[in-house]
């Protein structure tokens, strides 16, 4: 058996505590993923990544560091990975999606903080995740009050750079974001010792656009009926995309898309034709948060799309590849990233428009608007989401949850009733 204990110890991890996570992950993954029938062959890659989740990729990142490279940990879609890769660094997603990390987060944060923030901070302060140990620098952003204060806690233990997000989408806000990307470039250059040039930035833009195109191909296949891929599997692909090597991510997503497109030609699905189709919108679902999708897909419905950070927002909109100067490239980056419609913006009509558009594109029978507990932004925006969907005659169910198991049965009952209501 692969034994990563030496690597984890060298990272200063609390190996004994981490072992508790290693003990429960195989069961949760088996119940959620390996219980599925008729999965695409190319999901084997993602099963492999989870099986070696704290081994193979961390070892690659450490090799990069040994060769003099830097690893920057990010927590949000607004942070332009292109800058990091252009400077010869590696950007890796760090969001925590497990209840396992929450108690450690609660030691330094108020309990009424969202589980994503508590788990992310807990993974660092509890020393129970190799990715959080490996990252040389964390890149935060000001998307919500909880995160803003969390960076201050984390900065006591690890270098943190915070990008100051605009809160509106006026032309001057896009200009401000260009300035923030410039500041980030300066920080990254100093940290890595490498200059960001027009040429290496162009290569990084193309690299990450290819990743976006590949993920978009997989999602496009989910519009078919019967749907050739479960929502759980699509979610897993997205979660892994946040920390996998971007070139490999694109390659594996394209292989999966090839298979799915063949399945569509063959009329081959993972759920029977006519299975009720759900669009999930709301707060992100960081790995290994598979709860909602599992409950939906064991309640007679299939998730066909996610309008959230671990869904379409991650790959929709490309960065322009035809820029002539580095200034144009920065402008193109800012324009692309500012098209993301996070609830941190006011107003945020763009997200409502996205939900309505995606519900139609993916032929959703209903929408589930999920909110992680204590996420005020998405919670408050739920009213507008519900109103807009009802106006269009699209059934909607609003749910609030966290990473614990305790509400699973209650959620299953509500989801089951919602699916039944869809007819």
């Amino acid at each position, binding site marked *: *058996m692969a034994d*990563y204990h030496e690597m984890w110890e060298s990272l200063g991890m609390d190996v004994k505590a981490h072992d508790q996570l*290693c003990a429960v*992950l195989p069961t949760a993954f088996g119940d959620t993923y390996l219980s599925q029938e008729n999965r695409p062959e190319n999901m084997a890659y993602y099963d492999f990544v989870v099986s*070696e989740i704290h081994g193979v990729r961390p070892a690659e990142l450490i090799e990069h560091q040994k060769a003099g490279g830097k690893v920057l940990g990010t927590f949000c879609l607004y942070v332009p990975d292109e800058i990091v890769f252009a400077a010869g660094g590696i950007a890796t997603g760090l969001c925590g999606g497990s209840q396992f990390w929450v108690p450690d987060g609660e030691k330094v944060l108020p309990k009424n903080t969202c589980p994503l923030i508590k788990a992310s901070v807990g993974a660092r302060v509890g020393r129970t995740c190799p990715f959080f140990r490996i990252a040389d620098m964390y890149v935060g952003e000001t998307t919500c009050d909880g995160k803003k204060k969390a960076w201050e806690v984390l900065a006591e233990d690890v270098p943190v750079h915070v990008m100051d997000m605009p809160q509106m989408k006026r032309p001057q806000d896009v200009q401000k974001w260009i300035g923030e990307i410039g500041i980030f470039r300066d920080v990254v250059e100093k940290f890595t010792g490498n200059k960001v040039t027009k040429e290496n930035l162009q290569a990084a833009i193309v690299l990450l656009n290819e990743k976006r195109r590949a993920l978009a191909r997989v999602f496009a296949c989910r519009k078919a009926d019967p749907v050739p891929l479960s929502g759980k599997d699509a979610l897993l692909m997205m979660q892994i995309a946040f920390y996998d090597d971007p070139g490999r991510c694109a390659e594996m997503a394209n292989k999966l898309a090839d298979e799915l497109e063949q399945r569509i030609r063959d009329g081959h699905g993972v759920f029977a034709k006519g299975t009720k189709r759900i669009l999930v919108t709301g707060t992100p679902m960081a790995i290994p948060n598979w709860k909602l999708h599992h409950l939906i897909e064991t309640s007679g419905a299939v998730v066909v799309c996610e309008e959230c950070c671990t869904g379409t927002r991650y790959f929709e909109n490309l960065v322009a590849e035809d820029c002539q100067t580095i200034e144009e490239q920065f402008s193109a980056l800012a324009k692309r990233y500012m098209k993301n419609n996070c609830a941190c913006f006011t107003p945020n009509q763009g997200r409502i428009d996205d939900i309505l558009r995606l519900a139609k594109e993916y032929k959703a029978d209903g929408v589930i608007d999920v909110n992680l507990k204590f996420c005020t932004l998405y919670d408050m925006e739920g009213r507008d989401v519900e109103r807009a969907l009802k106006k269009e005659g699209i059934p909607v169910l609003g749910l609030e949850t966290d990473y614990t198991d305790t509400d699973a049965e209650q959620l299953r009952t509500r989801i089951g009733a919602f699916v039944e209501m869809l007819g």
Partner: protein
Amino acid sequence: MPEEEKDYYVLFHNHTEGLELYQYVRSRGISVKISPTPRVASVCCGMSLLVGADAIAEVRQCIEASQAAYDRIVALPRQIDPHRDKFC
């Protein structure tokens, strides 16, 4: 324990061995899955191959024919329950 309620996990010394056997077995159309190794099978993390009782004989033949490297094969009562609702 009735055979149909059992699953088999093929354990490896490293993931390179595991992927090699996975590809060999799949190329012969035998149904196996890549799985995190259950704690009851080993305290070390990493991939294993999950094999149903109906396919284990064929997988053993593959191992013999390919001289594949592996650690051991562990038989366990079925570990998977989609309605357990225990997440991590």
